[in-house]
């Protein structure tokens, strides 16, 4: 009760300055939004992604975020979109790892790379030969790795969700 009284006193004091009550309501609305706000890739992850993209596309290109997600980009050379690049995070055993997926302009998966891995278990998924399996077969048919079960299953789920999400977005757009 004391807290309510204090609040009413506070509200009375700032009356006329701003619709105080709205501010308080907004604050409590914004709190959960901040908690579930989109993942912000670290600078190290962004730099590594840029390095991989510039190696992958030998010609000059520019990139801009697409409306679906601010971590998904379209890769543009001389006014035409040549590819899409998605930065994502997925759970490993007791942490999260960052990965990059590059799609062709027809939403075909061209490259998958692990950019940052943060724990002792499951780092085997960074093996490029293993990752390349995702380019040629459905996620569920990708081979298991002994000692990396959680990260393997997590990446399989993340990639198949991303594939679906990107295809849907592309179809709706065109």
């Amino acid at each position, binding site marked *: 009760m004391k807290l309510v009284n204090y609040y009413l006193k506070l509200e009375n004091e*700032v009356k006329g300055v701003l619709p105080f009550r709205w501010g308080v309501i907004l604050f409590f609305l914004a709190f959960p939004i901040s908690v579930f706000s989109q993942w912000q890739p670290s600078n190290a992850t962004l730099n590594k992604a840029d390095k991989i993209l510039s190696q992958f596309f030998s010609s000059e290109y520019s990139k801009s975020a697409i409306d679906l997600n601010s971590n998904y980009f379209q890769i543009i050379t001389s006014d035409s979109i040549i590819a899409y690049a998605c930065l994502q995070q997925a759970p490993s055993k*007791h942490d999260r790892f960052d990965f990059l997926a590059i799609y062709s302009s027809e939403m075909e998966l061209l490259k998958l790379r692990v*950019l940052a891995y943060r724990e*002792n278990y499951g780092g085997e998924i960074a093996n490029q030969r293993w990752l390349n399996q995702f380019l040629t077969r459905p996620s569920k048919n990708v081979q298991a790795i002994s000692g990396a079960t959680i990260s393997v299953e997590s990446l399989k789920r993340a990639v198949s969700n991303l594939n679906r999400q990107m295809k849907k977005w592309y179809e709706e757009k065109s």
Partner: protein
Amino acid sequence: MKISLHLLLLFTLVFTTALSAQNSSENILGSPEKLIIGGYGQIDGNFNLDENNSMNSNGKLDVHRLVSFLGYRFNEKVTFVSEIEYEHVVELYVEQAFLDYQIKNNMSIQAGLMLIPMGIQNLYHEPPTFNGVERTNVDKYIVPTTWREIGLAISGLVPESSLKYQLMVVNGPLGFNNGQSQFSGKSGIRGGRQKGAEAIVSDFDFAGRLSYFGMLGWNLGASFYKGNSETTDFKADSTQIGITMLGLDARYNNGAFQARGQYILANLENTSQFNAYTSSDLGSKMFGYYLEAGYNLLEDKSENELVAFARYENYNTHHETDGINTNLAYDRTDKTIGFSYKLDKGAAFKADYQLKSNAASTEESKHLNLGIAVWFYFYEIG
């Protein structure tokens, strides 16, 4: 009005900090997507099938292990990991409890109670990840699994070279505790595990592991441990032994086929003086290995897996002795065949049949083991 403006400023400040999602108090208070909850367990039935065995003819039903995992990601760089374990229902342990701090991409330091990175099963011991109801005995008598002590570690990943590494400064096993040897000829250094419980420190030891995963389907590992055992009487040299342990292991899987093998050699120094002083019978060299192959009979037929496997295992805690007689009964061989029926990646029924023997006799004892194995992780995907 002046007060009101201050309040407004304060309000804006609190509002923006909350939005940034980096507020430290928010991290202490927690948010669901940073919490990691998990667990694993095994419930076993062990039956001796020998007709003339009156001593061990009773079976045993046991909630062998039940482990709760609780972790928390404070931020992108800092994670806390803990595992609380019930063994045989009545014994309570902390199996792991450490803080992991990422110092750069793909490299981090850990401090706290950690697993010694020796061999396969000490690190990868969630029951659905291995075949057989019980853990391998090489990983019981030579590697004293679950081997964990308090220490400091650095670990990392080199994706370009397909390498993973871990280096650790850690407390050693307690060999001598107030006049009594904790080591034995039968179980090696197993009785000396301090498990982070008011652990005695007289020397720091070193441990490390390097794994190579560059070949598709293969996972190769090399482990080492070097140091001295701990003692409550640090003035007496004969209460300590030197420990050098080396391990090599390989795991392979390709479609329905899977195989793994492990080789562990432990060289123990000063055992002659240690045994004389403590009236113990510790060997000076311990050695063990196993080879296992399995085949998923339901490959391409079902989402579930039915893995039939066979394993040959030899472990000898008296491979060499110094100043004492070698006990041939400590040169043991286990032959195991069985099934793991995986209902999911994290849930399995297991059954196996074991023939156990030792070099002191020509008899083999027969054992049937039945069990369930579970393992799960839960994240709130943010």
